[in-house]
């Protein structure tokens, strides 16, 4: 170890290092515990003997710690048995690869772009959903109530007509749900888009909505049985595409910032570097 950077503490001069002294007390204590346990299904005599051993072992253990017997001076091993000094290697160093001082992508969108994209996409999605409510004749509040039904179980018993009525609770729950989900999805895409090849709008506006819709389609029965029963899938998918395209456009239009960390933090040599 002589070549490894050593700490400022001086090396031991007396060629010995204080180490914990070997002791049988832990083994004795464990055997006492084991005997105590064995006594339960066999005979309590074993447990009583085990308890005695436990106390004896604890007494011996603690007694040892309170005296000089707790440690022993271990002499250093002979020099030929010590570690060889570590020498500089002549092996070729791989040029930086992804993960090693090289971060990909080199430039990324700021997190704020994802947040803005998510909120903008969410707003457009809400407009599409509202249009669905109006064009379907079920009213403005219908899509909001369907969304809120994920959290509010009493909607499960409502008819389509009742689901068209205004509910302040449903409005608040729906708005919060929609905003938070839009924001998180936007953030996710904002981080992910720079790592994907080709057009971000394609990933955000086509692939994303398709995957999201497929996922929602699979889980809708569990996540929101009410919406599963009443949802219009063409309108639902249209709203997903509206979200994805707008979100993708907002993210793409944001200015990218560098994520590259190729340069060393400091050229200064450490004070306690290789001896």
């Amino acid at each position: 170890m002589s070549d490894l950077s050593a700490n400022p503490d001086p090396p031991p001069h007396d060629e010995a290092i204080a180490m914990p002294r070997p002791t049988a007390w832990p083994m004795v204590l464990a055997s006492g515990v084991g005997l105590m346990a064995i006594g339960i299904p066999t005979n309590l005599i074993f447990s009583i003997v085990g308890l005695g051993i436990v106390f004896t072992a604890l007494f011996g253990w603690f007694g040892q710690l309170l005296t000089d017997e707790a440690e022993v001076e271990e002499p250093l091993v002979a020099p030929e048995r010590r570690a060889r000094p570590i020498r500089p290697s002549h092996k070729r160093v791989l040029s930086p690869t992804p993960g090693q001082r090289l971060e990909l992508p080199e430039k990324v969108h700021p997190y704020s772009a994802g947040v803005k994209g998510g909120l903008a996409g969410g707003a457009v999605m809400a407009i599409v959903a509202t249009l669905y409510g109006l064009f379907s004749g079920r009213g403005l509040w219908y899509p909001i109530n369907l969304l809120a039904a994920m959290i509010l179980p009493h909607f499960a018993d409502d008819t389509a007509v009742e689901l068209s009525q205004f509910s302040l609770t449903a409005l608040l729950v729906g708005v919060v749900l929609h905003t938070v989900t839009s924001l998180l999805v936007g953030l996710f895409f904002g981080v992910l888009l720079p790592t994907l090849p080709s057009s971000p709008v394609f990933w955000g506006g086509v692939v994303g909505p398709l995957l999201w819709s497929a996922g929602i389609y699979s889980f809708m029965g569990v996540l929101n049985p009410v919406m599963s029963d009443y949802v219009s899938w063409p309108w639902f998918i249209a709203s997903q595409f509206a979200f994805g395209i707008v979100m993708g456009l907002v993210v793409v239009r944001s200015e990218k910032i560098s994520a590259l960390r190729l340069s060393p933090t400091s050229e200064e040599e450490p004070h306690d570097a290789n001896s």
Partner: protein
Amino acid sequence: MAIAETGQSSAASPLVTQLHGWVTTVDHKRIGILYILMSLFFLVVGGVEALLIRLQLWVPNNTLIGPDTFNQLFTMHGTTMIFFVVMPMLSGFANYLVPLMIGCRDVAFPRLNALGFWLALFGGCILYTSYFTGDALYGLGSAPDVGWFAYAPLTSPAYARGGSVDYWILGTLVSGVGTLTFAVNLIATILTMRAPGMKLNQVPLFVWMMLVDAGLIIVAFPPLTAAQIMLLLDRYAGAHFFDTQAGGSAILWQHLFWFFGHPEVYIMALPAFGIISEIVPVFSRKVIFGYASMAAATAAIGFISLGVWAHHMFTVGLDDRLDAFFSAASFLIAVPTGIKIFNWTATLYGGRLQLRTPMLFALGFLGMFLIGGLTGIMLATVPVDWQVSDSYFLVAHFHYVLFGGSLFALMGGCYYWFPKATGKMLSETLGAWHFWLLFVGFNLLFGPMHIAGIMGMPRRVYTYEAGQGWDFWNQLSTIGAFIMGIGFLIFFINLVLSLRSGQKAGDDPWDAWTLEWATSSPPASYNFEQIPTVRSRRPLWDLKHPEDPDWKYE
């Protein structure tokens, strides 16, 4: 107890003195080796039990082993493999490696460390005492026969007469206390004894994962211990915690057990992840991809794994909303686990791969664990779980996770660090034979179980009728089991031969970068003559490449 065995002069000591040195040792390295030897012993025992199970299932209507003995075999096999093979092996690796990797002389509480090992060993002895005392004292039962998760009410005095279940409770309880001491010690060591300059975000990933692992042990084991004491009170003191007829709850046992049981899966998997995170970079000649995300994913796995236990209980008939929550949480854990898989793959990508035996096992781990993870996602889907729960599909799944995952990685770790612990290299030829026999045998054993399970074969049946389409798949599995047995035999031969006449390893046979390779092989009892100062995640890289050290970039 004026015992002053230093542990350094044992090479020339008589056998009794050597044994005395091992029994009284508080050296973390020797305790680590003791844990691993204990694990290997129980691996043979549990492996023989598995072979007997496979022999019984070789043909339909087989009468080789009776139903009672079969119940005992699968109970003892599961309990042994989890509590007395994988747990001691991971404890052994952590004990041996963590102080070396963080550059200290020993663990924070060396005597407590020794106590932990002896408790684990005596726990195993208590479990197997059941084979020798159950019949003699009660004329009933012998080994426990309630499955490794010992569901109530099977464990109640009415169904489990005699003492066999008590040995299961007490053996796992005592070893569990030992595991807790190990975890406390490990956390204290990692948090307080790192080499000067080594920040927590610079410790090797194995250390990171063991830190989270120890945290999980601290949270997960006490509920099991409490449940076991409650069960003892039910059996001996007339309590009714799990007695439904007296106002207790059998489901309560399942909740308490699986609150331990599922984190336990990750307690066994995280050290494997740590080992892979050390092996893959060294044999790819690259730094690990995404150190920070690996550490964060480990912490996320630790956290999420505490909230998924009821996915073992989908068939119990819990509330649908509970099923949905635990299903979603189980899906969620695939995210950090997937991050790890991607990071290991990214580390391999573009690297100069060296297919030495540790790397073979690491690559085997990647494939097998991925399959286990994917079937885990299938089982996290409630309707799928309802369909295949308690079938051989489930048995296949968890063996792909725990054997294809944990044990493959632990075997890789054996090959990787054996030179450090002994100063000798394990034979590469025998190692390759070991790997390929294990790989082929493993897939032949557990791959067909997926099919048998989907075809409806329930787990834990001691025999089956012909004509259900299960015969062929069971025979494949049995052949695979024996191929694996040969693989392990070669491993043990390799250990003995290499110890006696293996090639000398030197201090750093793999040209690696973490601190354990900076000391001698085997290390002195005090590890380092001088405690090193660390400036980066790869202190040995810095020394070997002073023109391009890592510390400039971290």
